């Protein structure tokens, strides 16, 4: 306890106040300080007064003071409850809160800055904990948001391209990259850019960057942290593209197809483990979305193709026939629909069983595929009934296809004895659709079916053609 002398009660209040007082000139030099702050900082008055105020702060606090607190003080005339950290001679830190006011002369000219300084050591640890907790909460919230955003984007994607673009966009947002590119390894080993933006490729198209091979060889996340870490070719492109660093994340899907997610940065960056992990999580989501799309496509395939023979099924034939009618109408070309019914198939089934029957159906399908023209579509309606759609034909070429079919189906089947011959009865309807008469696909099928019956009734293994 300090004794108060009656002569200088206010001086005493000032010197031993429960907070520190410091007066600083407009040049930032300490001109006066009370005993409290000298005690707290363990300094003698003679080494304290005359010192630049900012040099008493630890470096980080110094940067914030110069770039933020000092300009605010000069603009506002005061700052309240700003947080600073003093450095004691031993290196120990004193956390404080400061109120500061710019003192002005009667003419309104600023003369000096006065500061009241409060020791907040006690609550400092609590604040540190609070800040740490808040940072952790923000980080996990950001991570959750990034994953939610990408889940939403992948779910909304209509096709593979949209998934890949969404992957690039979401990785870019998650790691604050200037640009993100997605590359896929082709069967040839070449890397194709399948989505996003690739600034290095923009300045040197088609280059195979050595970092990609390094990443693919190790199948591990790779960081080119600065231009000086890159090989000369990459470094030159980085300079031109204003890329200061980039990271490469190699991935591989269940089919063994490999890809790269490349993040480009406009400054030297090293990603934290958490950021790499987030990038990987988003990429895995995208791969899952792509896998789901592939499965869906397979299901669609199943729904459109005959399981036994692999030929188009009735659904696909209907669709294609409708499309073919429209395009022949548009192009003014003729369309042939062939209806094929096997002769002797029932005998094979009855005598040798369904397994042998299936073998014949599969073999017939293969032979049909072999003899139709490149753009013709062969399909199976069911049982031993097949159909071929031929666009852009005339009577001669339609008959030529049909006679190849007869010959092919008639040829012997290795697993079937010669006593059970198989042949084809074919009915063709050839039509030149015009604006006056556009046939429906049902009409064409009915007519081709009827023509086939005439072949059947006429002795089998022959062709009947009807011109409409």
């Amino acid at each position, binding site marked *: 306890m300090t004794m108060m002398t009656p002569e200088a009660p206010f001086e005493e209040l000032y010197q031993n106040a429960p907070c520190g007082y410091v007066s600083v000139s*407009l*040049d*930032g*030099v300490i001109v006066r300080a009370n005993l409290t702050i000298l005690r707290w900082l363990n300094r003698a008055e003679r080494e304290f007064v005359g010192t*630049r105020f*900012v*040099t008493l702060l*630890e*470096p*980080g*606090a*110094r*940067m*914030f003071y*110069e*770039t*933020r*607190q*000092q*300009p*605010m003080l*000069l*603009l*506002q005339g005061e700052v309240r409850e*700003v*947080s*600073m*950290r003093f450095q004691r001679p031993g290196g120990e830190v004193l*956390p404080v809160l400061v109120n500061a006011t710019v003192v002005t002369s009667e003419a309104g000219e600023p003369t000096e800055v006065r500061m009241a300084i409060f020791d907040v050591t006690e609550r400092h640890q609590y*604040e540190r904990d*609070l*800040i740490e907790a*808040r*940072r952790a909460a*923000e980080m996990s919230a950001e991570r959750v948001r990034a994953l939610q955003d990408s889940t939403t984007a992948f779910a909304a994607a209509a096709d593979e391209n949209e998934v890949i673009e969404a992957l690039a966009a979401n990785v*870019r*947002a998650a790691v*604050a*990259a*200037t*640009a993100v590119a997605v590359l896929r390894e082709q069967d040839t080993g070449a890397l194709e850019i399948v989505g996003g933006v690739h600034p290095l490729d923009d300045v040197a198209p088609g280059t195979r960057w050595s970092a990609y091979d390094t990443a693919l060889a190790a199948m591990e996340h790779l960081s080119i942290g600065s231009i000086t870490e890159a090989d000369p070719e990459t470094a030159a492109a980085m*300079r031109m593209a*204003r890329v*200061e660093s980039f990271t490469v994340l190699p991935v591989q899907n269940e089919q063994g197809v490999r890809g790269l997610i490349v993040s480009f*940065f*406009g*400054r*030297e*960056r090293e990603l934290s483990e958490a950021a790499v992990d987030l990038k990987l999580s988003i990429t895995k989501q995208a791969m899952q979305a792509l896998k789901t799309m592939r499965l869906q496509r397979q299901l669609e395939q199943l729904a459109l193709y005959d399981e036994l023979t692999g030929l188009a099924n009735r659904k696909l034939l209907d669709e294609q026939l409708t499309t073919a009618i429209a395009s022949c109408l548009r192009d003014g070309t003729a369309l042939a629909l062939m209806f094929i019914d096997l002769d002797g198939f029932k005998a094979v089934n009855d005598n040798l069983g369904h397994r042998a029957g299936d073998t014949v159906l599969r073999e017939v399908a293969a032979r049909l595929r072999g003899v139709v023209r490149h753009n013709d579509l062969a399909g199976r309606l069911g049982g031993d009934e097949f159909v071929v759609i031929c666009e852009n034909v005339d009577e001669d070429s339609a008959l030529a296809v049909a006679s190849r079919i007869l010959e092919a189906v008639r040829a012997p089947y290795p697993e079937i004895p010669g006593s059970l011959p198989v042949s084809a009865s074919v009915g063709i309807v050839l039509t030149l659709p015009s604006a006056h008469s556009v046939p429906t696909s049902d009409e064409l099928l009915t007519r081709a079916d009827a023509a086939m019956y005439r072949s059947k009734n006429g002795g089998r293994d022959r062709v009947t053609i009807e011109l409409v």
Partner: protein
Amino acid sequence: MAVEATNVRRRNNITERGNPAGRVLLLAHGFGCSQETWRLVVPLLEADYRILLFDHVGSGSSDISAYDRGKYDSLHGYADDVVEILESLDLTDVVFVGHSVSAMIGVLAANRESSRIGALVLLGPSPRYVDTDDYVGGFGKPDIDNLLDSLDANYLGWSTTMAPMIIGNADRPELGDELTDMFCATNPTIARHFAHVTFLSDNRADLAAVRVPTLVLQAKDDIIAPIEVGEYVHAHVLGSAYQVIDAYGHCAQLSEPAEVASAIRAFVP
């Protein structure tokens, strides 16, 4: 790329002062500030120059919704904006005056669009803050972490006390001068990111590419951009002028506005 002028104006809160017939000065603020930082300099120049002020996206009264973390993860994103500002207003031969980190943003913009930027005034520039084996920037990596701690400690109560200022305070006049409020209103997440980008960038290699007349304005005593750093910038920008002004601290435009204004006048009469 076509730039919508009104969008850029709103995005960067472009304001205009001074003499419409005068040469254009584009004044750019540094980290921690807004265009308010030029408040004391503008009156000293407005009689003779056409003065354009703006806020970087994420600072002051800029459009925060335009803050794309990927774009603003490097100074190139900010330089893109400067070029867009000049293009949208179709300005040429502009004098770009950049304080602190904006000095480097100006260098990047001028290296890209030297037809639009006719001269550079770099006030307290630093091409790299973190020391390397052969370069003294003035700070170590731990100091940057420390700065972020300081930043967080100062924004501890941000969400509750600062949010009302951002959404307007018509019914709370006690919050004081609106412009000053905007100066204070900094989103801590963006401030943290801007601090990273400012203090962890390395633009030393860009100095040699500068081809426009350049003035390096160095405060006598600045711990953020020490005199050695100013000399380094001067030495690496070909043919640059170098002037040390009698100012203390990093914000000479606030502590010694008259010195700053007369240096600009002398450089671009």
